[in-house]
C-alpha cells in the first residue's frame, strides 16, 4: 500500500461504481491447471476461487456493493469484511492494469 494511486483506486471501487471487464480481457477455464485464468494481451493471471465469481459479475450491471452482496451469499462461511477487502483489492489491482471499464 505504498503507492498513493492504488489507494485512490481502492477508494473508487468501494462505492456504487459498476465495473465492466474490458473487451481485451477474457475469463477462461484452464484445463492444464484446472482453474480459471484471466487472459489479456501478452499476459494471463491465474485466479483463486473467488476471483472468477467477481469477474462474472463485472458486466456493467452490478455495483461493487452488489458484487460484495452476491459473494457474501455464495461463500457463506466467510466474514463479510474479508470478502469486502478481497473484492475491492482485486478490482483495484486489475483496474490499475486497465482491465476494467465503466
Amino acid at each position: 500500500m505504498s503507492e498513493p494511486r492504488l489507494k485512490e483506486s481502492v477508494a473508487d471501487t468501494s462505492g456504487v461504481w459498476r465495473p465492466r471487464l474490458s473487451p481485451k480481457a477474457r475469463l477462461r477455464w484452464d484445463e492444464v491447471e484446472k482453474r480459471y485464468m484471466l487472459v489479456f494481451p501478452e499476459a494471463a493471471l491465474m485466479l483463486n476461487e473467488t476471483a472468477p465469481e467477481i469477474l462474472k459479475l463485472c458486466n456493467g450491471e452490478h455495483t461493487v456493493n452488489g458484487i460484495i452482496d452476491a459473494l457474501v451469499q455464495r461463500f457463506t462461511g466467510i466474514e463479510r469484511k474479508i470478502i469486502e477487502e478481497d473484492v475491492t483489492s482485486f478490482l483495484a489491482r486489475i483496474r490499475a492494469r486497465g482491465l476494467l471499464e465503466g
Partner: protein
Amino acid sequence: MGAPRPYTLVAELTYKCPLKCLYCSNPVNFHEMRDELSTEQWIRTFSEAADLGVVQLHFTGGEPVVRKDLPELIRHARSRDLYTNLITGGTLLDEGKLRQLRDCGLDHIQLSVQDTDRRTAELIAGIRSYDKKLDIARLVKKVGFPLTLNVCLHRLNIDHVPALIAQAAELGAQRLELANTAYYGWALENRSALMPTRAQFDALEPLVREARARYQGTMEIISTKVDYYSEYPKPCMGGWANTYMVIIPTGEVLPCHAAHRIPGLHFDSVRERPLATIWEESQGLNAFRGDDWMQEPCRSCPMKAIDFGGCRCQAYLLTKDAAATDPVCSLSPRHDIIREAIAQAERGDGSLIYRDVKNSERLSLDLREPVAR
C-alpha cells in the same frame, strides 16, 4: 526432465509483406522460405498447441493478412479457446475485413506505426503507408477491437516519443508498445543507421515513467530497452524454449524469431512430427534448456538464474559462439564488440538496406559467413 509448459505460440504465417521496414526481425534470407504451411497444417498445429497448454496465439509474419485463410485460422483458434492476437502493418486491411475478423472471434489487434512524422515513417517502412495506418487505427476502434499500437524505436524516431504517446492516446489505444529495436535480422544489417545514441536512450526513461503515471488505467505503456546500453543482458524469451515458441511459415518450431541463424541446431517441422513430440524432443529446442551448456563467466554467476546468460542468437551473431555469454553483459570477455557498436552509433554512419526480395536474395548468398562485426 519433462519440457516446461508453453504459454505462447507465435505463428509466422508468411514472410510476404508489402512493407520493407529497416528494422524487420524476419530472417534476411526470407525469400528462400516460400513453401508455406497449408490451412489444414496450421489448424492441426493450433489444436496441438492448445492441448499442450498454449494460451496466447499471435498471428504475425511478414504480413499475416496476406493469407486468405486468416479468418478460418482465427475461427479455429478461438474454438480451442486460444487468445488470438493479430500483429499487422494494417495496409491490407479495410473496414469489411476488420468486421469479418471480429466476427471470427479475433480478440485483439496490434498495429505497427513507424512515426508521427510522415517523412520518417515512410522512410522506415519503405512505402507510402502513413495515412492508411492512421485510418486503420481509427477503424480498429470503430469496429470495436481493443487496440495496441506498436512502435519500433530507433535513432530516427526516438526523439518523437512524446508525440507518439499523445497520438496513441488520441487514437484511443489501450496499449502502446515502445519497443526499442532489437538487432537481429534486417535490424542488424541496419544497426549503424538505427541505433540511438546513449543520450537519446537516456532521455527516454523519464518520459515513459511520467506518461505511465499519467495514463495509468486507461492506456498501458510498455517499453523495452536497447540491451546494448544495459549492464546485464535481457532474460531472452524468459529462457530458451521455456514458455514461448515461434513457428515459421515453413513449419519449423523455433524458440524465438532468430534461432535458425545458429549453425548446428536442427529444428523439426510440424509437417513431420506432432507438436508435443517436437516440444519435448527437438534437438534445437533442447540445446540451450537448463544451464548445462553455460561457460564462464555465466556458469558460476549468481545472475544466471535471472538472465540465463542473455540471448543465444545475439551471442552467436556477434561472437560466432552460441554458448558464449551474451556480449551485451559487462562481464563478457567480448564486451568490446558492444562498445564498438555504440561508438559506431555515436558516429551515426551506415547505409540503409530495405527488407525486400532483391536484398534478401543478395544477403542469402553470404549467409554462410555469419554477420558478425
